[in-house]
């Protein structure tokens, strides 16, 4: 059996086990076990991957291929390259930590959570457009209930908006995927095989737009990002974590695995439009975050900005920038998960997320506060934490672009780092520092052990990437070689 399929089977098995029992202890045991196993297998996968990579120069490793729907030649085809491995690791880590952040949730919550995980992992391992799309949607739908049932605030509105917007994106995507399939000859859905085929230029234009926007909606592409603030604000902690940390990465990943990889010419021709959009998104998200008063809104806008950077870098279509994009996905995934996890810690105690109603939490819950500061630093790109590595790779790579337009745009995008500093420090200053605003808060306790596990694990990853980036960067860089080859083919 293929190790990749394990990544889908483990959450599935967890889901089924969950349905068997009911007690809180049982549920926790199963979920921690399941996601622990998942994390373990992701790590093993990474190790095996490095091992295999050394001896093989195939684009995809651990390839398995089973014919599924013969009439359309749809396969269950899996395989990974470095980028998928990195994304799988990210998902496993965030998924695992999310479990701890959702410690007190009931069985149903975790059942949906597992379903979400199935979708995410299936998506990252898929090589077949159809299965990829299928897992993509599998990952989207649980969101509705996770937010709608366990969320807070305007949860129903937020859940509905989020689901509908993401599904609208996937509707565009579906059209695009069908276009790719049939216009390339209607013989294969396998991404690697499709990349060998040529899609006529006239069709590439519209397919590219559809696919890019389709994935872009999930990747918080500028005018289609509005689900994000409401969605994140209403979602329960671990759902925000998984959604911002992993799910939004599905968009970026899809953009380059499908849109760029299969339609390089259109990517070249049209990138400027989307570059402008993403460039706006990067700066705009940052500005949008500055005056927000809800911690989660701040983070949601920050995600818009950071995820905008992912798409921005992808569209630069050069090796370094794309590496940066993947790093940024990774980094943003980890730090935003950390953020949400900590916001969850704070919210669960203060019962407010309004920064005006909080202050001086550093003294009350030092652990959570220090972690929050670290997350903030990661977000504003402090060296030694993952954010810096990612952002710098993006900026350096983007600036390597020979075209003046791209460089000017890069310069504009870099300005976001200042604004990021503004809103992060504003939040930190208001919430953690200063005098205690609400004397009721003095009685509050610090993070529990399970919340600490979640935070520490995420910080560890952030620091590891920040301090020793070359390992993960190398994997990504090498794996992008086929994409670059594809881009320079014509």
């Amino acid at each position: 059996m293929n190790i990749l399929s394990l990544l889908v089977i483990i959450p599935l098995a967890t889901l089924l086990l969950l349905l068997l029992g009911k007690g809180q202890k049982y549920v926790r045991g199963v979920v921690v076990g399941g996601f622990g196993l998942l994390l373990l297998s992701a790590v093993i996968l990474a190790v095996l991957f490095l091992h295999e990579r050394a001896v093989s120069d195939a684009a995809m490793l651990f390839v398995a291929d089973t014919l599924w729907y013969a009439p359309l030649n749809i396969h269950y085809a899996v395989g990974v390259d470095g980028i998928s491995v990195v994304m799988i690791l990210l998902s496993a880590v965030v998924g695992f930590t999310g479990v701890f952040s959702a410690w007190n949730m009931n069985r149903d919550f975790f059942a949906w959570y597992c379903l979400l995980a199935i979708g995410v992992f299936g998506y990252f391992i898929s090589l077949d457009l159809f299965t990829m799309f299928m897992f993509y949607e599998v990952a989207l739908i649980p969101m509705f209930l996770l937010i709608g049932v366990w969320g807070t605030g305007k949860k129903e509105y937020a859940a509905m908006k989020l689901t509908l917007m993401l599904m609208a994106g996937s509707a565009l995507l579906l059209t695009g995927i069908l276009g790719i399939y049939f216009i390339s000859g209607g013989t294969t859905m396998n991404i690697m095989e499709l990349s060998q085929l040529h899609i006529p230029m006239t069709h590439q234009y519209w397919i590219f737009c559809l696919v890019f926007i389709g994935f872009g909606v999930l990747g918080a592409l500028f005018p289609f990002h509005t689900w994000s603030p409401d969605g994140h604000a209403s979602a329960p902690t671990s759902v925000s974590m998984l959604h911002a940390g992993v799910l939004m990465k599905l968009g970026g990943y899809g953009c380059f695995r499908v849109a760029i990889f299969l339609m390089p010419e259109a990517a070249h021709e049209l990138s400027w439009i989307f570059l402008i959009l993403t460039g706006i998104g990067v700066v705009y998200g940052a500005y949008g975050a500055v005056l927000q008063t809800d911690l989660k809104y701040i983070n949601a806008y920050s995600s818009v900005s950071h995820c905008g950077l992912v798409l921005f870098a992808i569209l630069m279509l050069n090796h370094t920038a794309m590496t940066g994009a993947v790093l940024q996905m990774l980094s943003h995934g980890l730090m935003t998960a950390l953020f949400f996890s900590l916001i969850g810690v704070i919210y669960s105690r203060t019962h407010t997320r309004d920064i005006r109603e909080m202050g001086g939490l550093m003294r009350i819950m030092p652990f959570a506060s220090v972690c929050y500061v670290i997350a903030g630093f990661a977000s504003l790109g402090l060296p030694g934490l993952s954010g810096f590595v990612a952002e710098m790779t993006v900026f350096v790579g983007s600036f390597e672009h020979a075209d003046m337009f791209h460089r000017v745009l890069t310069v504009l995008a870099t300005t976001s780092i200042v604004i990021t500093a503004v809103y992060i420090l504003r939040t930190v200053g208001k919430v953690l520092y200063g005098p205690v605003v609400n004397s009721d808060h003095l009685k509050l306790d610090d993070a529990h052990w399970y919340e600490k596990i979640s935070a520490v694990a995420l910080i560890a990853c952030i620091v590891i990437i920040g301090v020793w980036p070359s390992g993960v960067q190398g994997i990504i860089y090498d794996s992008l070689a086929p994409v670059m080859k594809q881009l320079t083919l014509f």
Partner: protein
Amino acid sequence: MGFTVFIILIPLVMFLLLSFGSKWLRPRAAGVIGTLGMTIPALLSYYTAYRYFLADAYVWPVWGPINTFSMEWLRFSDNLSIEMGVMLDSISIMMLVVVTTVSLMVHIYSLGYMKGERGFQRYYALLSLFSFSMLGLVVATNIFQMYIFWELVGASSYLLIGFYYTRPEAVAASKKAFIVTRFADLGFLIGILILSYYTGTFDFNKIMDVEADLAVTTMAGSSFLGLSAATWAMALIFMGAAGKSAMFPLHIWLPDAMEGPTPVSALIHAATMVVAGVYLIARMFPVYLFAAPDVLTLITYVGLFTALFAALIAITQTDIKRVLAFSTISQIAYMMVALGVSGYGGDFGEGYTYSMFHLFTHAFFKALLFLGAGAVIHTIHSNEMEVMGGLRKYMPITHITFLIACLSISGIPPFSGFFSKDGILSAALRYEPFVFGVLLFTAGLTAFYMFRLYFRIFWGVDRQYEKPPHEAPKSMTIPLIVLAVLTCVTGFIPFSFYVSPDIRPYEVYIHWPVALSSIVVGGIGIFIAMWFYRKASDRPAHLAAKLSGFWKAAYHRFYIDDVWMFITKKIIFRGISGPVAWFDRHVVDGTMNVLGTGTLKTSEAIKGSQTGRVQTYAVVFVLSVMVITVLVLVL
């Protein structure tokens, strides 16, 4: 000299040890461990300096750079990568010595000063973090490494300024410091991007390889908005430097940064971090000189203006740390001017040399001033001059060391400041008399405000204190004494033998006309200050009343902070961010919502067509059939 890497690593280890061990370490133990931890790098730095300049002087007569350690940290592309390494050359070794020395002094000093403070362990951990970052910055082998540590010093500065995080002023100050420097760093980053784009490298040695065809010159050709790429790059890098070194108009964060603990101000905001900008320009000096001379001119005049401007403000401030902060700005601006007026080769490199020299000497006497002021604050519990006076009786050691520092900064021989300042003035004279004139005037102002400070603290009104002030404990006075000694002796170091832009030693002499004029001007300044402030009198008030407009403006720091406040609060917050947030909620999100509600509205609007009457259905049915038929027939 592979051991040099430990100079950097040991503070890092200390940082980790102290931050993770804070729960298990008692405050005192943490302080001692931190101090000991700092001693080793200091000793190693001295040893390095000894090896480089004296023992292994095999490089004579050229002080070439030696990379003693290098490791690839992050590879961007096939030719661009960030290395982490240790590069030794004369200025980096000089900086190592400065940083470790001052840092060590501050560590020792803080044992007394910070005693009993909440978060003592954290304080030492952060000091170690800062030392690590600063040391990493100075030994950077490439511009990106420098940027990395540049950011880290900024962050540690942020954390230290905000050490008293429950005080809103401290929080605001730390935020301001970080954001302003961050804004400047943006320029630095873009400069790096431009530079690396054209040169294909980050490595200092490669960028500045003057003998080979200077990589940078290739970028002089391409231009953007009328300026060459090199000009852009270097100007933007200067922006970064200006931010860190508090050049006008990015100086606003530094006075506020005085909210941090005083030893921190001494270390970060006087001796080391704030001169990083100068260090950066010095580091890239050949590039400025050969590829972007226009930027050097810019640096000169920005520096000149800042020097004068800060000095003027310093005259009016009453918070002693603020005075020192503006003095720092002014002195750093001196260094900047010196770099700006410098040439290349032999005597022409005088500006560069003396800029570095001033950096070196200033570090010690300004640290001394701050620590002295700290000693005063420690016992008075206030920063305001108004509540001080006549302290010379209570704290003799502090008084003497403070006086030495004041004399040094005023350019009175034989203290170190005299030598470095003299070199700068002569370089300025060589460059342009106007620059010289302004600097000279500033020197006078410097002497005036420093002695104003001195007299008002230690002389002036004899106040009745509730609790009689006392001399600081040993842990605080020892650093004062050490620094005072350093201030006395460092002036005699023949700097031009070791530091020059073309890395070749040369000899300089004291230019007596210049020196005399500076001494005279300094003397006048001191005299006026004495006349005003030696005894309590209403002379200053009279003068202030006469110059009320100017006085008020200077007291309010020429309203630059208000301008910035206007820019951030009104333009960025209200003008951009607010509208963006509104736009996002109402236009972008509104559009999405309209799509949704539009569907529902449409649905509501057309519901009447389903009348529930079978005859309507029939009409629709039959008419549709006929319409379709006709359409199919026609089309």
